[in-house]
């Protein structure tokens, strides 16, 4: 059985405070704390590139668990802000970590749904090739493409990286996945000429309409009810969108995490940053993970603690 074994996260130390931008963007403490839910965003050092953040995340991982690099059979990076167009960033990470020559590497071009896509792709790839150990990185430093004068984006997005060890000794395993794409609306969250653009209303509408429907489908597909789920981990687009989705699903706020107050929306890293913490809690047998955004797309999965004695 292949599944999630352990996660390491790296959030750069440098921060830009949204309190210092109140006058510039005509916002107040209430808007910062209760609405977007982002007090400050994490920003990588200019000298660091995407692959460097991945390496930092790996350094965090090996502090938690012993990993023999020679046993890693595949490394994948979820990113849309690679070090460079050619080669794939996973090859650069492979080189910086000194992974074995027999180790496969590929990138996954996806945004906020990327971690869930990554889980599905990595596990399928590993099963097909009878691999036992793989590394799934997420790193999408939007500081590379953010216009610091754009209120719609600069108050929200932060930099981070994560790495998930997927192996034959899992702590959590995945159930059935659900996916979807509204490609005709791709421009609403996109990057042209190295500048991020987001139509906040369009992305809000998409998230509020499609994600609750998807969660209902996901639970049905997995033969589970809302009461079976201990924790819901939604992509941290903003506090307002997480609250809106929760409200539309009728969820108790205790079962929904919002954690991005002090680092921001880290795109494909937002779910694994929280999952790392939630995996450590004994009571979390079943969790729903749901990513949504760039594409416009969504992807969701149920993860369950790997114990023989639970359903």
């Amino acid at each position: 059985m292949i599944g999630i074994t352990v996660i390491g996260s790296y959030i750069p130390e440098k921060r830009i405070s949204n309190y210092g931008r109140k006058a510039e963007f005509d916002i107040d403490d209430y808007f910062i704390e209760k609405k977007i839910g982002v007090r400050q965003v994490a920003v990588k050092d200019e000298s660091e590139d995407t692959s460097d953040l991945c390496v930092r995340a790996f350094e965090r991982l090996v502090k938690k668990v012993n990993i023999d690099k020679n046993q890693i059979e595949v490394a994948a990076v979820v990113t849309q802000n690679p070090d460079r167009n050619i080669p794939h960033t996973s090859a650069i990470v492979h080189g910086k970590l000194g992974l074995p020559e027999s180790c496969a590497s590929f990138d996954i071009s996806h945004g906020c749904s990327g971690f869930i896509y990554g889980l599905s792709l990595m596990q399928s790839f590993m099963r097909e090739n009878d691999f036992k150990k793989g590394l799934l990185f997420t790193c999408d430093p939007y500081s590379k493409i953010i216009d610091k004068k754009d209120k719609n984006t600069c108050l929200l997005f932060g930099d981070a990286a994560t790495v998930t060890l997927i192996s034959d000794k899992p702590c959590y395993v995945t159930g059935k996945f659900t996916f979807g794409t509204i490609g005709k609306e791709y421009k609403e969250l996109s990057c042209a000429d190295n500048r991020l653009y987001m139509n906040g209303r369009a992305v809000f509408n998409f998230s509020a309409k499609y994600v609750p429907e998807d969660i209902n489908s996901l639970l049905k597909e997995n033969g589970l009810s809302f009461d079976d789920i201990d924790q819901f981990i939604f992509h941290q687009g903003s506090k307002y969108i997480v609250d809106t989705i929760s409200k539309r699903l009728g969820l108790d706020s205790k079962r929904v995490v919002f954690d991005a107050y002090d680092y921001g929306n880290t795109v494909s890293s937002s779910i694994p940053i929280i999952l790392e913490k939630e995996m450590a809690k004994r009571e979390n047998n079943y969790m729903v993970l749901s990513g949504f955004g760039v594409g416009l797309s969504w992807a969701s999965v149920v993860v369950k603690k790997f114990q023989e004695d639970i359903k």
Partner: protein
Amino acid sequence: MINDIGDKLGEIIKEAGSRADTETLKKDIPLSEQGVDSLDMANILLNIEESFNLKIPDEDVNKLNTITNIVHYIKNRQKEQ
């Protein structure tokens, strides 16, 4: 008809979780000046679309800045249907 729309709109604004006091909202003063922010507004417009079975294009959004304007807009759009 206007009262029905106005009542429903009041419910929608309240449900959006705005910090505005929905009991004392003035009908002809921009909602943005009464505590309804851009996130609330996105939520309010979505709920109007769903409740009244309308599609509100982005180019119409700036016109929908007061309760009176929104009520008239909904009424006119319903006449077109």
